[in-house]
């Protein structure tokens, strides 16, 4: 984990120490990703079961001191101790008494041959097909946009096969809604807040005349901004559950589909198109009795297996957990794993010999039904589930396996997008 959170000329020091409790191998990735949120000075971290290595960016002023004293810049002992204490708190909270998740593999086609093995991003950027506007924020050109359009067709066919009703949801989501479903407790680290200038002539005048940005963003005082009433939505399906809140599902069930911008702040974990701050998801959402939701989730998986097979995509479907924040992680992740609530579609990224979650099959039990008072006709709380696809990640995985030249793409994709004859 390493990314650009620092200014130019900031000295970097390396800090190594043993974790307060051994970190199980299966947890090292989760702990490492959480270290991004421990301290703004941390710009990189590596976690092994018996060793933690931090890259710490010192304030730029340390460079000046360094030059004057002709000594390497260093962390003060107090600061070093503070950083270590914060990291150990995370380690203890996540690793002590951790329950090992059972990984259940439902489909494994990772060994399908792939035609391409390079990282497509540098070439996409060179061709102007992808441009990075800021950390985690990307604009996509015609090639990727068309590919996403192709995948959208497939996902819409899936939605149609369930008779899903189309919805359009806003990008903003009220803070009060998110409070009602405990989102602040489970995922505080990834929230993105929305505000505006206070309705005050002086504040607005002052802003219009003096607003400026430095390397860290707007220099405007936080006092100029109004209290936060809304967030940028982290998922699509929440909007449907809120639309159904405090109601009885007269027909006994509902199936919906929608596409939407989603926002999850991932600090220094933000990386290329793999982990974006602002991304797009298409979801097919099921609300009804338990069997209705579970059967449809399974049917969706079977239907998507055929889609991925026709593409020749190398991927695997396996059980997974959501990235709960530190305090909730141990229990919530174990619960999700035990009840098999989440399965991820993990596509192969040949260029890094790794996989990337491009979609998921989710079951929430009656959590939203209870939290939001969505009732079935018999008065019991509704169960919910969703099938979600990350459109940019889907395109990235495809390009990673098939390359940037349409000639090397599966004929079905070429035909659909360009009307090209099969090779």
């Amino acid at each position, binding site marked *: 984990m390493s990314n650009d959170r620092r200014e130019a000329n900031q000295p970097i020091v390396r800090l190594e120490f043993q974790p307060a409790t051994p970190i199980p191998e299966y947890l090292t990735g989760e702990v490492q990703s959480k270290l991004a949120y421990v301290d703004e000075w941390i710009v990189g971290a590596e976690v092994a079961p018996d060793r933690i290595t931090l890259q710490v960016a010192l304030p730029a002023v340390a460079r000046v001191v360094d030059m004057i004293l002709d000594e390497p810049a260093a962390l003060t002992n107090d600061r070093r101790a503070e950083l270590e204490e914060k990291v150990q708190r995370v380690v203890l909270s996540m690793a002590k*008494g951790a*329950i*090992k*998740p*059972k990984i259940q593999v439902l489909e494994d086609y990772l060994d399908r041959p792939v035609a391409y093995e390079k990282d497509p991003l540098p070439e996409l950027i060179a061709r102007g097909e992808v441009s990075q506007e800021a950390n985690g924020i990307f604009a996509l050109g015609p090639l990727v946009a068309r590919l996403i359009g192709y995948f959208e067709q497939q996902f819409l066919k899936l939605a149609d096969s369930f008779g899903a009703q189309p919805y359009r949801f806003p990008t903003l989501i009220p803070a009060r809604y998110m409070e009602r479903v405990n989102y602040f407790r489970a995922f505080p680290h990834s929230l993105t807040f929305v505000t505006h200038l206070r309705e005050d002539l002086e504040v607005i005048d002052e802003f219009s005349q003096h607003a400026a940005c430095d390397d860290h963003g707007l220099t405007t005082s936080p006092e100029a901004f109004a209290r936060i009433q809304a967030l940028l939505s982290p998922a699509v399906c929440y909007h449907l559950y809120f639309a159904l809140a405090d109601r009885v599902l007269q027909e006994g069930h509902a199936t919906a589909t929608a596409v939407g911008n989603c926002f999850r702040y991932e600090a220094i974990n933000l990386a290329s198109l793999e982990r974006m701050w602002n991304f797009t998801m298409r979801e097919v959402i099921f609300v009804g009795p338990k069997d209705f939701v579970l059967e449809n989730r399974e049917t969706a998986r079977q239907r998507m297996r055929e889609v991925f097979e026709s593409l020749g995509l190398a991927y695997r479907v396996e059980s997974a957990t959501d990235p709960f924040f530190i305090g*909730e992680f*141990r*229990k*919530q992740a*174990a*619960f*999700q*794993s*035990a*009840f*098999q609530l989440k399965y991820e579609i993990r596509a192969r990224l040949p260029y890094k010999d790794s996989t990337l979650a491009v979609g998921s099959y989710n079951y929430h*039990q*009656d*959590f939203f039904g*209870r939290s939001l008072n969505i009732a079935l006709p018999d008065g019991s709380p509704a169960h919910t589930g969703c099938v979600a696809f990350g459109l940019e990640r889907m395109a990235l995985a495809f390009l990673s396996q098939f390359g940037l030249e349409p000639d090397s793409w599966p004929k079905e994709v070429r035909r659909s997008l360009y009307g090209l004859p099969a090779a």
Partner: protein
Amino acid sequence: MSHETTLAARVQSLVAEAIQAPVELVTPELAFGDLPQWDSLGHMEVMLRLEEQFGVEIDTDVIARLVSVPEICKYLEENAHVQ
């Protein structure tokens, strides 16, 4: 008081503490979801306390089975040294 009653009472008391509910609400037949407090976090708290107080190691597979007071009692009778 029979062995079964004693164990059931211990489990009811443990569940009540774990989910922070009055013990009188934790009936001998209570199951996951019957009380708002016995939600996902409450359930995992029950599992952790079972491990601590009965010296059992609860496998991930089992967590999804131990969803009621009777199921927990049955599991403890088969897997823990209970008196």
